[in-house]
């Protein structure tokens, strides 16, 4: 049997980057507990459109936890009350009947609000463009036994590569720091032979871009690691520090 709940939403509305924002309150009835959080937002938007009001703008794309587009700070936590999921993977069964749900955009000086719940996360793209890649085309897939890679390194590289660039780490951080994101990007390349070659240059370029864009200084509070939907480990930050400091020492 399907369960439904009635909820109240407190949603951040802001017409544009320069406009003053405010919270608006909406009531939504008969939300299936099997629906996803974004489906619930689709319902509220349908309701708003039917009332001839402007729908709530929010980011989303894949709706299966792989693209990193969805964001939303829900009831005090990035990606909401569930652990290790993105907002699009969040189920309405995590909420109670009659509950008020507060929805805010990511808050960080480097992620300004574009409209309502959508923030400008191009700062992350700029950091990637500064060095988060391997600069030469390395051709076809070589034999798996051509270059031996320790299993631990391969596993850690895969784990760091699972960062989807959602920005929850920045949203959760009291310092507005992007170190978890940058360290994941530096790590997954630094741990494998092809990426290793440009390791020093990459660490310097990406950190310089991160600083230039106004992200904060990491003090290792670890809120990022808790809220990261992909469980990116804080130990990546130690690796980034290591990469960056040894690169600087060589100059």
């Amino acid at each position, binding site marked *: 049997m399907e369960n439904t709940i009635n909820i109240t939403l407190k949603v951040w509305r802001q017409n544009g980057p320069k406009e003053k924002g405010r919270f608006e309150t909406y009531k939504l009835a008969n939300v299936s507990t099997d629906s996803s959080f974004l489906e619930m937002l689709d319902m509220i938007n349908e309701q708003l459109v039917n009332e001839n009001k402007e729908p709530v703008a929010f980011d989303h794309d894949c709706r299966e936890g792989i693209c990193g587009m969805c964001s939303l700070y829900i009831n005090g936590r990035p990606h909401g009350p569930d652990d290790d999921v993105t907002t699009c993977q969040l189920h309405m069964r995590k909420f109670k009947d009659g509950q008020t749900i507060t929805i805010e955009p990511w*808050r960080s000086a480097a992620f300004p609000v574009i409209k309502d719940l959508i923030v400008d996360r191009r700062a992350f793209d700029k950091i990637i463009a500064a060095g988060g890649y391997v600069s030469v085309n390395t051709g076809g897939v070589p034999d798996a036994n051509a270059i031996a890679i320790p299993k631990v390194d391969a596993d850690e590289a895969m784990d760091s590569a699972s960062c989807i660039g959602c920005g929850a780490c920045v949203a959760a951080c009291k310092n507005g720091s992007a170190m978890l994101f940058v360290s994941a990007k530096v790590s997954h390349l630094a741990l494998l032979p092809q990426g290793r070659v440009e390791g020093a240059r990459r660490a310097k370029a990406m950190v310089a871009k991160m600083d230039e864009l106004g992200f904060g200084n990491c003090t290792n509070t670890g809120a990022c690691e*808790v809220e990261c939907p992909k469980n990116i*480990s804080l130990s990546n930050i130690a690796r980034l520090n290591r990469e960056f400091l*040894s690169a600087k020492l060589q100059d």
Partner: protein
Amino acid sequence: MSNLLTASIGRKLLMSVSGLFLILFLFVHLFLNSFLLLDGVFGFERGQMFNAGVHFMGTNPLIKIIEPVLALGFILHIVYSLILTLQNMKARGPQAYASGKKTSGVEFASQNMLVLGIVIASFLAVHIINFYMKMKGFIAWEAGEVEFPFLGNMAKGEDAYSLVNATFKILPIVILYVVGSVALAFHLSHGFWSGFQTIGWNNTKWMPRLKCISNIVAIVLGGGFAVIALAQYLFF
């Protein structure tokens, strides 16, 4: 090496190195303070061990060199803590989350390093006026002259022990020392492992180890200073 200190990680490196250096100093300091309680254990007369220790510190040329380095360490650590915190507040932006912060499992200390640091700094100011300024002759005090065994002979020096003992008979000062020590313990419960993380000495294996050592360092240093002040008040 160029412009290392204009980078966020470079600024953090300064915080870390200065902080870890201060921890090293605190261990030496605590070792000396423990003499305040140990006369009875080693069969010395009241205050002899501590006075000998103070005499050693006051006459040793190495200490004369370390002293300005230590002052520099404090100044760097405090100045950079302010710069970093201001930059971080700016990076965070002015808008607070209306629904608060409900992220679980974040250390209290890690979120309040500046406040804890300010408590330590206030304590430090009182501490310097209480003892350092007097023992260094910036503030007049009844130094007295006592004899104590020193490197196999008997030596004469000022009676620092009585100054410390008299100071620790004043309840508000003892309370201040305990508060300062507790703030220090919290600061170090995060600061120690964070300092290693900052210089890059961490990975998934070392994380639990460093956090464990961090708590031990915090308890030994914070608890040590507090217990010595309390014991002086109660039993000496």
